[in-house]
């Protein structure tokens, strides 16, 4: 028997806010989290724009052993997971006694790897690297750290799927719970912010060069868009069976009803219409709803010329031109491996508080974006059902549909 799947906690460590309250305020007011990061220029960056979060001080919360193996994504993910578990009313004692899994999206640990290699180059002796670096150098350390800190006993895997990692992590957690294989899964996405992580991406000429206007640089769907702005942090969602959530008396923030996915099977970096169309269509089919049930789309749109056009075409083809659409990347920049998770969390905050966050910097539509209903300013509106898109390098696509919980 298939089970209903709900979300009982969210946590955010984002460039538009540390925690849900700050993020909610930013989403309402259209506040940008983008800055000009001067050290990147000396390092050789073409564009120094980035979303920015500080490395959190975890000493008050974690032991030395728990901390020294954590790379930047794991540190961010600890902060978002701590908040999500608190909202979901889950603590270590409960998690230790009741099987709970973790599927977290992460696709790099470049900063930590480079620091380690630098140490060996300088000291010419691997025994002087220290014991933490081996863990910091592994992509799966978000999972390794969180599962040991919180005594998680269920599924324990990292999901690497480029900029759709966070979204697929929620989708996979949803499937495991729906099929009865898990009662709860900690899902999410984390993205490192350091100059090492994004240098090669900058080298492709992908980032917006509007360095004199950080808050205006990320402009998804706008005709004047000229590239994305990298960003990062972490987002966590507690995905749970309805039965478990009700038994525990946990808050129910929304119900996951559809997960669509696809692979383009074409170019390694160029998006295509067909893959996105299939992902959106599959999500609707899985959810068993008609297109007109969706009353908000949180677009993947990153502010690149080709990607945004493809998505506008896909949204128009599958959902029509009336459904309100915004890309929160206009404020956050592209949170990459984190984005698919954070954007579901942002949308849940909108659904809970009856508004649509603005697609800031959308001033002039182009041929494709003119066909869909982009929301340039905050709009008070009830949301009963939303769809969140995430598309990544390699042509990996994911679309999630969440609706307001009705018993």
């Amino acid at each position, binding site marked *: 028997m298939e089970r209903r799947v709900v979300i009982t906690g969210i946590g955010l460590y984002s460039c538009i806010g540390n925690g849900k309250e700050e993020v909610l305020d930013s989403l309402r007011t259209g506040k940008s989290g983008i800055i000009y990061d001067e050290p990147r220029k000396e390092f050789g960056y073409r564009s120094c724009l980035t979303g920015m979060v500080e490395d959190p001080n975890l000493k008050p919360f974690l*032991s*030395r*052993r728990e901390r*020294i193996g954590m790379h930047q994504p794991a540190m961010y993910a600890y902060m978002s997971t701590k908040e999500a578990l608190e909202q979901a009313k889950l603590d270590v004692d409960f998690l230790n006694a009741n099987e709970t899994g973790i599927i977290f999206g992460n696709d790099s640990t470049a900063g930590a790897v480079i620091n380690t290699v630098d140490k060996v180059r300088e000291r010419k*002796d691997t*025994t*002087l*690297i*220290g*014991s*933490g670096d081996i863990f910091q150098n592994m992509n799966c350390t978000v999972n390794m750290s969180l599962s040991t800190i919180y005594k998680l006993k269920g599924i324990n895997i990292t999901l690497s799927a480029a900029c759709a990692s966070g979204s697929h992590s929620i989708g996979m957690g949803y499937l495991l719970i729906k099929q009865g294989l898990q009662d709860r899964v900690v899902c999410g996405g984390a993205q490192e912010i350091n100059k090492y992580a994004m240098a090669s991406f900058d080298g492709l000429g992908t980032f917006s060069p509007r360095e004199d206007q950080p808050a205006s640089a990320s402009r998804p769907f706008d005709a004047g868009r000229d590239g994305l702005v990298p960003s990062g942090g972490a987002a966590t969602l507690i995905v749970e069976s309805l039965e478990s959530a009700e038994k525990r008396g946990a808050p129910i923030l929304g119900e996951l009803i559809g997960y669509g996915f696809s692979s383009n099977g074409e170019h390694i970096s160029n998006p295509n219409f067909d893959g996105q169309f299939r992902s959106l269509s599959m999500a609707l089919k899985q959810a068993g709803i008609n297109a007109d049930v969706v009353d908000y789309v949180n677009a993947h749109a990153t502010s690149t010329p080709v990607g945004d056009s493809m998505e506008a075409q896909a949204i128009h083809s599958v959902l029509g031109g009336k459904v309100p659409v915004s890309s929160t990347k206009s404020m956050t920049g592209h949170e990459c491996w984190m984005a698919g998770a954070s954007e579901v969390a942002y949308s849940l905050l909108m659904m809970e508080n009856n508004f649509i966050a603005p697609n800031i910097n959308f001033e002039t539509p182009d041929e494709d974006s003119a066909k869909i209903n982009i929301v340039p300013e905050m709009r008070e509106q009830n949301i009963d059902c939303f769809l969140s898109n995430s598309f990544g390098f390699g042509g990996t696509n994911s679309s999630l549909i969440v609706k307001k919980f009705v018993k």
Partner: protein
Amino acid sequence: MNREEIISTTKRFLSEEFEVEESTILPKNNLQKTLDLDSLDYVDLVVVIEENLGFKPTADDFKSIDSFDDFYTLVEKRLA
């Protein structure tokens, strides 16, 4: 470096690295228990000794260390 200097120097970097109070680092106390060292931590012990004292203790060196007194004797011997 005489024994007193060794004691004060090692107390500073060991308490900082392993996050224990300096007051718990006493000559007769057991080094492994006081610093709460697991097998991975011995790797970090080698690193901080090399960084602060300029030599790398071997696995055999550690076999003969029980108390901090033993440790100070090892340091004296290696720095001589």
